[in-house]
Every structure is written in C-alpha cells, then in structure tokens.
C-alpha cells in the first residue's frame, strides 16, 4: 500500500526551483534512501515533504491512512539544542505534542508511549539526564525516540549519522534497520552511499540526473554507475552483496 505518492513535484525557494519533475512512491515497509551531491536539493525536498515549505508545483499525496502530521522527523541538530537545558524525558515526550491539538497537557498514555520508546532506543536509564550532556549518538537516539512518539508509520531521517564515529554510526544504522523491520517505513537522506546500498530497499538519486527505483535497478542504472564511480572509483560495490541484495528482495516479493 502506498503511503506517499509524489507527482510531478518541483521544490525550491521563492518560486526558484532546485529540483523539478520528481515522481516517486513510497510503499508501506519501504526503506528509501535519498542520495545526491551537496546542493542537489535533498534537504529542500525533505522540507517540502514535511510541509515546512510549500511545493512550487506538483502534488504530495498521502495514502494508507497516513495523515500529514503523522510523519516522524529526525532533524539535523541545531545550535539552539546544543545548550538547551532539557531532560531526555521532556524531549521525548514533546514528540507527542503534534497530536494534542488545543489540549494543554500530556496524558498518562503519552507518558507511557514516551517511556516505551525510550526503552526501545536503549535510553530508558537516561530519562532524567540532561540532553546537552549526552554524547552525539545518545542525542540522536533521544531525537529518534521523540520521532517515534510522533509516528508509528513513517520516519524521515535527515543525515542521521552526521558527526558520529564509525562504531556509533553502525549501531545507529542497525537501530534504523530494526525499526524498518518492525514495520515502520523509513525515508533517509544520506551522503553515505555505501550504507544506502546495504540497508535501503529503494534509492532516489537526485542531481543532474534523477533516478528512482529499487536498489538493484540503481546499481545497473547510469546515474548509479556514475555516482558510484565518482565516490569510490576503486572501491566498487562487491558483486556478492549485490546478488545477495537482489535475492533478498525477490524473496520478500517486493514490488517496485
């Protein structure tokens, strides 16, 4: 079932398009990775999908019972947050805010949900710790737990591993994969093409050439080949991984 359908979308600032003619669909359970060079419009696209800025033209259609405010968002960290005096529990709980409407306080269910999500992210013991005193990886987990409070369907992750060391990066990717396997649809913006290819089911490549399709199709496409060569000329993706990925995908019977 398709959660998001993007039709002829053009995104940009002040009616000046950065990206045009985008067409893609995101189905329930997909793991879509959006890759592309710096300045290709990845963040602009993300902001448009989140309604933080209006599209220049085209449509964003929701399906599968997804409402516009049921998208969990993992933003890149802002300067304000770096010295913000807030406990982990307060931040995670604030993920429930979007649903509250005009109701002023959090209910017991909200608090329970926040607690469960903290435990899911392995930060249950940090509830009373101060956010700014945590490590980068722990902070990302806090923000991920908050995003899970806002959604049980679709997560949008903006460079979730930026600034993390390799070990924490691997743990973060693992965590995201587990969430995806538990049924949450994931859209991730990433510079990290290797990670995109090992975790994602679908790739949206934006830049001079726009490509959308499954991972296997991407590896054989022109956009993919050019991009892979430009990023890692001698370190091409091993044949073995590729076939493994192909067979896994057909085994799961995914449609594009």
């Amino acid at each position, binding site marked *: 079932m398709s959660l998001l359908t993007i039709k002829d979308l053009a995104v940009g600032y002040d009616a000046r398009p950065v990206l045009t003619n985008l067409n893609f669909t995101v189905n329930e359970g997909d793991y879509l990775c959006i890759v592309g060079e710096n300045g290709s419009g990845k963040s602009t696209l993300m*902001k448009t999908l*989140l*309604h*933080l800025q209006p599209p220049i033209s085209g449509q964003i259609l929701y399906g599968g019972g997804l409402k*516009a*405010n049921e*998208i*969990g*968002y993992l*933003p890149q960290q*802002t300067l*304000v*947050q770096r010295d*913000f*005096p*807030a*406990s982990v529990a*307060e*931040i995670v709980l*604030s*993920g429930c*805010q*979007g*649903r*509250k409407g005009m109701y*002023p*306080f*959090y209910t017991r269910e909200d608090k329970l949900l926040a607690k469960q999500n903290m435990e899911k992210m392995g930060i249950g013991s940090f509830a*009373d*710790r*101060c956010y*700014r*005193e945590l490590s980068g990886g722990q902070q990302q987990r806090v923000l991920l737990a*908050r*995003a899970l409070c*806002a*959604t049980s369907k679709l997560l*949008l992750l903006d460079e979730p591993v930026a600034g993390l060391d390799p070990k924490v990066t691997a743990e973060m990717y693992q965590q995201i994969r587990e969430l995806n396997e538990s049924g949450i649809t994931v859209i991730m913006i990433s510079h990290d093409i290797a990670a995109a290819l090992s975790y994602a089911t679908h790739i949206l490549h934006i830049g001079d050439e726009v490509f959308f399709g499954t991972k296997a199709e991407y590896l054989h496409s022109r956009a993919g080949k050019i991009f892979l060569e430009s990023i890692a000329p001698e370190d091409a993706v091993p044949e073995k991984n590729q076939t493994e990925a192909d067979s896994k995908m057909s085994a799961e019977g995914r449609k594009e």
Partner: protein
Amino acid sequence: MLSKLAMYFQYPFVRYALIVGILIALCSSLLGVTLVLKRFSFIGDGLSHVAFGAMAIASVLNLTNKMVIILPVTILCAVLLLKTGQNAKIHGDAAVAMISVGALAFGYLLMNLFSTSSNLSGDVCSTLFGATSILTLTAREVWICAVLSVVVLVIFILFYNKIFAVTFDEDFARATGTDADRYNLMIAVVIAVIIVLAMNLVGSLLISALVIFPALSAMRLFRSFKKVTISSALISVICAAAGILIAILAGTPVGSTIVAADAAAFGICWLISIVK
C-alpha cells in the same frame, strides 16, 4: 530595621509596590528561558524602547490611562519584529536595533517638543530607569497589573508544553502538526504585555535584565526545562522582593536595586555552578 519596615508597610503604596513587583517579576522570568534559548534576548530590549516611545506619545496626548496606547503599540512591534526575524531579507537583529533606537529618539524628541511638565529630564529619567514610579502606583494600576499578570501566568501554564516544543525544535514541531507560527505569535504578544507591565517596575531601559537574568541564573544550576523555569521564577520573585525592601530601607531607586539583586543572584549561581 523591622520596625522601620513595619512602619512603611502601613502605607498602601508600599504594599502595592511589593505586590506588583512580585507579580511582574514572576511573569517576566517565565518567558525569559524561552527568549534566551530562542536567541530572542534582544527583542525584549528593543520592545522596551518601543514602549518608551509609546509612553512619550501618551504623555504628550495627556492621557490619564497610558496603557491604552502603550500596550497596542508594543504588541504590534513585537509581532512585526518576530515576522522580520523569520525573514532573511532584513536580519532580525538589525531590525530590532533600527526600531529600538528609532523609538527611543522619537520618544525623547516628542517629550522635549511638547512636554507640559516643568521637570523634563526628571520625567525622562524616571521613564527610563523607573526611578520612583512604582511607589506612586494607584489602586487601579495595581489591579491592571494583577489581572494582566494572572492572564500571563495562566497562558504560560496552559501552553507550557507547546512553548517547550516550539522552543526546542521549531521544525520538528511544525512537521508533526503543531502550529509553530501561532505559538511564536503568542510568545511575542505575551512578551509585549510583560514588558509594558515591567516598565512600571524597573523603567524601560532595565526591563531586559528582569527577563534575562533569572533565566540565565537558573540555567547555571538546573538541567531540565521544568526545573529551570520554576527556579528562574523563584529567583526572580526573591530578587524583586529583596530589591524593593532594600530600596525602601536604603532609599535607593527601586528599579536599579532590583536589577542589582538579579545580577548578584546570577553571580552566586555562576559561582555555585563552577564549584559543583
């Protein structure tokens, strides 16, 4: 000393001053945390100058109830400043600087040209530094202050969770369905009200201190938003009460004594945070 205080408290204007002072201190500290964290500290400063300009207009027009002009003008400027702050074309800080010095100069000019008072510099000085105004409050002004303070307090409690969400991460709040613009607007309006209120207490030049100091002090000591908010309210109330009492006993100007108490509290909190 106690007997001297007891004697002073027999005068209603002293009791009014203390009540109003504490209420205003409580309100002004609440949004301080949000202002500091949103990097809006300067907006408080700019608005207080606007309030001064509006006050000058009100004096020139010889209005008995100056709030009629001061409150709407300040709220309007708060909304304008917030809008330009989001607009990249004129940067927020430049817009604030422009409006604030403009209002200050315009206000003084007006008072100079049209003043009916014989003691112009005294008038200006007391508007800027709140020299004696808090001790000359009428019962009606105390009521206005009390009502507005309670309104601010209730709004803050009802919207506490939304203010937190919008302060911590505006984009996330917006993306998940919180109307961030509406709450930014609400924050701006409440700030304007607080500034107009606080003008009676400390004068328009010292208002920012009342908004910023307690929040910064509390942020030295505590690490959760709730604790910071509650303790900044407590610090602010204690400093205001202490400042007013000292001012009465020592005969110092009320506004600057309160601000001095706030600054001292910040120093103490800073020392504690270093020792810890």
